């Protein structure tokens, strides 16, 4: 074998892990900044737990979307599906036949239905994911307002009990103004989030499906050559995403207790932003699943900071959007510094127009 250099090369951090670590650092920095700037509100542990308590639905949606983004796709219907689920469940629970399990099944059913529709059209009929999920968004919105225009408060006792269920942490807490010690509370939604995070993390790192998702997102042509069923992988990614949207809807109504046509609106943008901040590249194929919840935390912290700083509600969206673009550019810089290619904005496959010409040129080499 002679002259080949068999010395082990320096192993550098994988892209996914690097971006995840950066996301973690940014979160710590952001939260630290918040602690320093607004100690009154942020110093309390309850504030941290409330990030989870009040936004459990967003966390859950972000997880499902993470998988779709890694496989190289996008789903912008999840917010509307979440809203639809809240209204549907609210109606079921308030009718005489409703029970909690029924509502849960309904939520999962609606989510899976959308997931199946999107998955089939995108994976097997090869239609652009953006258009299909945009149509799905309008479909869900249309169905939502058709079902019921006014908010429905869920008063069913079993459900209300579920909603009020809290886990109390006796040793952590704050003194309120009257000097009474109020221990920290965790709502049920948080448990769901934690369970899902664990399941999905295991799925992405240790299951064949998870690794296939990464492979397809990295290079779907190669994945096909390597023997992976690309269509099935993409299909199930969307089904999972739809399912999490359904779960998110159920958790949402568990948190707020009411079905409302505004529920979940623009959550898909927040979920995308959370994933991007958490180190999941828009490109596909890169990203650590644990980055999704971290990114969500960072996004929520930033929003809280903006709110606490007194920025008008109209401008909040613009500021968040600007930060999002900043992150995308930052990621692109990091990736290009690592790679050999020149600086290029990390754009995902569903963003670029059909690149049929480029492929043809490569085939023309006899």
């Amino acid at each position, binding site marked *: 074998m002679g002259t080949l250099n068999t010395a082990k090369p320096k192993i550098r951090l994988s892209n996914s892990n690097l971006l995840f670590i950066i996301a973690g650092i940014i979160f710590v920095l952001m939260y630290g900044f918040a602690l320093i700037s607004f100690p009154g509100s942020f110093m309390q542990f309850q504030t941290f737990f409330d990030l989870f308590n009040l936004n459990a639905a967003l966390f859950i949606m972000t997880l499902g979307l993470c998988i779709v983004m890694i496989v190289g796709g996008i789903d912008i219907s999840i917010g509307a599906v979440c809203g639809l689920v809240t209204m549907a469940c609210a109606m079921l629970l308030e009718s005489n036949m409703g029970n909690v399990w029924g509502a849960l099944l309904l939520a999962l059913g609606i989510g899976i239905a959308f997931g199946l529709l999107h998955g089939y059209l995108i994976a*097997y009929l090869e*239609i652009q994911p953006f258009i299909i999920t945009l149509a799905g968004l309008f479909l869900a919105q249309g169905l939502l*307002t058709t079902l019921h225009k006014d908010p429905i408060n869920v008063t069913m006792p079993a459900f209300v009990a579920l909603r009020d269920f809290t886990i109390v942490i006796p040793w952590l807490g704050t003194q309120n103004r009257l000097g009474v010690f109020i221990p920290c509370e965790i709502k049920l939604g948080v448990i769901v989030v934690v369970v899902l995070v664990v399941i999905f993390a295991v799925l992405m790192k240790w299951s064949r499906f998870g690794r296939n998702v990464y492979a397809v997102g990295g290079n779907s042509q190669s994945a096909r050559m390597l023997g992976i069923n690309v269509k099935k992988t993409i299909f199930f990614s969307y089904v999972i995403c739809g399912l999490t949207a359904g779960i998110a809807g159920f958790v949402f109504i568990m948190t707020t207790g009411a079905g409302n046509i505004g529920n979940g609106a623009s959550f898909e943008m927040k979920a995308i932003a959370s994933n991007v901040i958490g180190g999941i590249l828009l490109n596909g194929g890169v990203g650590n699943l644990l980055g999704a919840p971290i990114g969500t935390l960072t996004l929520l912290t930033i929003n809280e900071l903006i709110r606490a700083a007194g920025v008008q509600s109209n401008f909040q969206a613009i500021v968040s*959007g600007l930060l999002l673009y900043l992150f995308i550019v930052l990621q692109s810089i990091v990736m290009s510094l690592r790679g050999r290619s020149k600086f290029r904005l990390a754009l995902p496959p569903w963003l670029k*127009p059909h690149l049929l010409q480029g492929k043809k040129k490569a085939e023309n080499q006899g």
Partner: protein
Amino acid sequence: MPRLKANLSHLSHLFLPLSVLLILIVINLVKGADYFSITMVNGAFYGNIPNILFGASELVILSIGMALVTAASQGQDISIGENATITSAVFVLFVLNAGEVTLFTILAGFLISCVAGLVIGAFNGALVSVFKVQPMVATLILFMGGRSIAFMIDGKLSPILANDISNQIGTVIPGVPIQTPTILTAVFIAIVAVVLKTTNLRLYVEAVGINPSAARLNGINPKKIIFLTFLIMGFCAAVAGFIAVNKAGRHDSVNLLKFIMMDAILAVAIGGNSLSGGKFNLTGSIIGAYTIEMLNRTLLRLEVETETIKAFKAVFIIILMVIASPVVRVFASKVLDKAKTLVASYSIRKIGGLNNAVVSNTDTSGKKEE
């Protein structure tokens, strides 16, 4: 003979919108045979048909722009409603701050709003042509943030446009039997027709949409053409916004032309244009726009709720996308081929069978064809 064939094939491209139109007319006639009746109210035509022409004015203009953008950039612009809202906000701001409102003020305001439209078109166009972002995603930015920008311009107060000229533009000029928006749309279509006749817009846009690299090797700059179509779209948005705000009499940033992009995409698709670019058919798109307007009104007449219409349209778009998808196309052509061979073999069998029957009357129950 070839000339006749060409005209017939041109008509066949209009088959889809015309047939949908026909179905809608039939449904409406069934509901009430006086569908086509036209009366005169206050010196202007009134009836279902004039109302459709009136109501679809903005949509027709936007569909023309959408057809061009789709043809050249192989994607859709989903920010058109928001763009129109921004340009009309600029218009209203100008007019309300101009003191006395004359025809000149209105015209100046219109021109300024057109400039705003071109700026917006340049923004979208640059993202698509220079940064190679897919049109639907590039225009997502304005789709999400456009109305907030319009809010900032019109001061969130939903300003009212209450002068005579606006009123006339929005409804009817006294003495003219046709509503003004309808006239404006007709003028716009005429201008577009003239542009197509006197420039190479069609050739360049179609070449770029079908094969950008070949277009390049023939001296066309695909980036410039794509950019141009977005500029045109911006101009269309300005005109549509102008008509819409004068119709409404006030500028409502939240609801002005909301979700009109869905109707425009549908109009273009029904008009026989491929949503993945290439050749375009403006006549079809225009007919498609009027068809969508008729569809909207028919659904309302059949007492389908406004919100549910959104769901219907979404399903419709999905069906159109499915039909247009490459996988389905390949499948359909295979099925057609099989059907052809089946028909061919059936007719051969028939002839053969007749011969057999003549030759022998023995039973054929167990016999199978070779």
